[in-house]
């Protein structure tokens, strides 16, 4: 069982819809410990991605993901732009020429994506950033594939891991990003980037798990 190119397109489109829905929510989270723009940034970026989608619908997964990455880099700005841009660019590198991905291939792609985010942002788990949602999700995928779980189960596990990681950011004192300026005051708030990361992985599980 695998994820087809068309399913990747469905994922991207659904992410655009989900981020649009959650725009105000992400802005609110960012208002508490940042500058109240994360939702608008992601929404702007994925609206630009949607304009690109028709032109790349017949391409391979790698080309699609790299195009998403380039589009985010050139339209989002802020911290989210370079980070999510790198995320999709790196995932795209790992899937060049592929018309479908199995669990191991998706695991490798997401792993590369998260490594890219870490390389670009130099954040470690515990810094109260998107990395706190992304890293556990990759680990969950890796364990699932070692345990020979089904793709469906693995996707659910990674989404669940991202959710736990996202919620774990609430008590954290930020050490990276804008929230770090608040020092102790950043504790008690959920990180907006970790939240948008969870939304992307939750959406993947929802659109790719068919039963």
């Amino acid at each position, binding site marked *: 069982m695998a994820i087809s190119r068309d399913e990747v397109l469905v994922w991207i489109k659904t992410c655009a819809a989900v981020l649009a829905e959650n725009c105000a929510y992400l*802005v609110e989270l960012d*208002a508490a*410990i*940042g*500058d*109240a*723009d994360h939702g*608008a*940034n992601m929404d*702007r970026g994925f609206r630009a991605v949607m304009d690109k989608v028709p032109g790349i619908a017949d391409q391979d997964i790698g080309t699609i993901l790299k195009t998403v990455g380039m589009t985010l*880099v*050139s*339209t*989002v*700005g*802020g*911290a*989210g*732009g*370079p*980070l999510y841009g790198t995320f999709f660019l790196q995932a795209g590198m790992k899937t060049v020429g592929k018309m479908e991905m199995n669990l191991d291939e998706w695991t490798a792609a997401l792993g590369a994506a998260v490594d890219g985010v870490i390389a*670009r*942002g130099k954040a470690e788990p515990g810094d109260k950033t998107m990395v706190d949602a992304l890293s556990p999700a990759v680990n969950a995928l890796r364990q699932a594939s070692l345990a020979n779980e089904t793709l469906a189960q693995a996707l659910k596990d990674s989404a669940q891991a991202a959710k736990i990681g996202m919620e774990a950011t609430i008590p954290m004192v930020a*050490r*990276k*990003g*804008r929230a*770090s*300026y*608040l*020092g102790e*005051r950043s504790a008690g708030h959920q990180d907006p980037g970790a939240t948008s990361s969870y939304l992307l992985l939750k959406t993947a599980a929802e659109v790719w798990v068919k039963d």
Partner: protein
Amino acid sequence: MKKLINHPEDVVREELEGVALAHSVLVKVHFDPNYIARIQAPVKNKVALVSGGGSGHEPMHGGFVGYGMLDAACPGAVFTSPTPAQMLAATKAVDGGKGVLYIVKNYTGDVMNFEMAAELARMEGIQVESVVIDDDVAVQNSLYTAGRRGVGSTVLAEKICGAAAEEGHLLSEVADICRRVNHFGRSMGMALTSCTVPHAGKPTFDLPEDEMEIGIGIHGEPGRRRMELKPADEIVEMLIEPVIRDLPYKSGDEILLFVNSMGGTPLIELYIAYRQAHQIAIKHGLKVIRNLIGSYITSLEMAGVSITLLKLDEDLKRLWDAPVHTPGMRWGM
């Protein structure tokens, strides 16, 4: 939300259209990607200065494009750093063959986007140096955090480096002067009110009538701590003492004192703040030989003030006094 705007999503474009109509003698405004370039750009054999950041800090940076200051400014969405695409286009438009200096405020987004832009520009064979400004003493500096924010010193660095570039210095020399300004400059700010990001539609934080935020940045983010409202003299003391302590200015040093409005605080209050800041500087034996008072680096309509001290040496003094002609800063011509 009470603003003189049309639709939140049109704020930046319409503002830039206003700038284009108002200052066609000084700048040309390019759309998609958005950047404001000096009308004479590219200026041959002059190091080009490019800065940028989120919108909402006007006149910084777009108002500082012109003779003796920036060659281009890249305005992002409100409080959102611009993209590498904007920076690359601006870089290509203004490079006069002597290289381009990026003056970057230390925010994760700004730093990463300018990093990517520099990588892309170098691939195209353009010589690029970046200097990151991080002068906000409200933020504890540390290797493990994002570090200090770039605030008031950015304005001074853009003026001083612009003059250095006009003098014909090399890219490395202009970059050194920029680092010197960052090394000699320190700032701290406070807010009496929050500000409202247009697309958010409501104040970023709520601040009761009798409270204020101390140690804020320029993105409407809450400050280091909230406390009860105090008289201006006490507030100014809370801002300037950490600034003076942080960078051991010696008695006898000559300084530039910059008292800045966050956007909503009027001049009459700035002068009351300036009075106390100047008096405290004198008490510490500092010689206030230059000053700047007004709205130069703002946070939309936020009411509040920031204070920046810059230690001056002969070079910085000469470069500060040099002629400048931009929409937001002008003298000597």
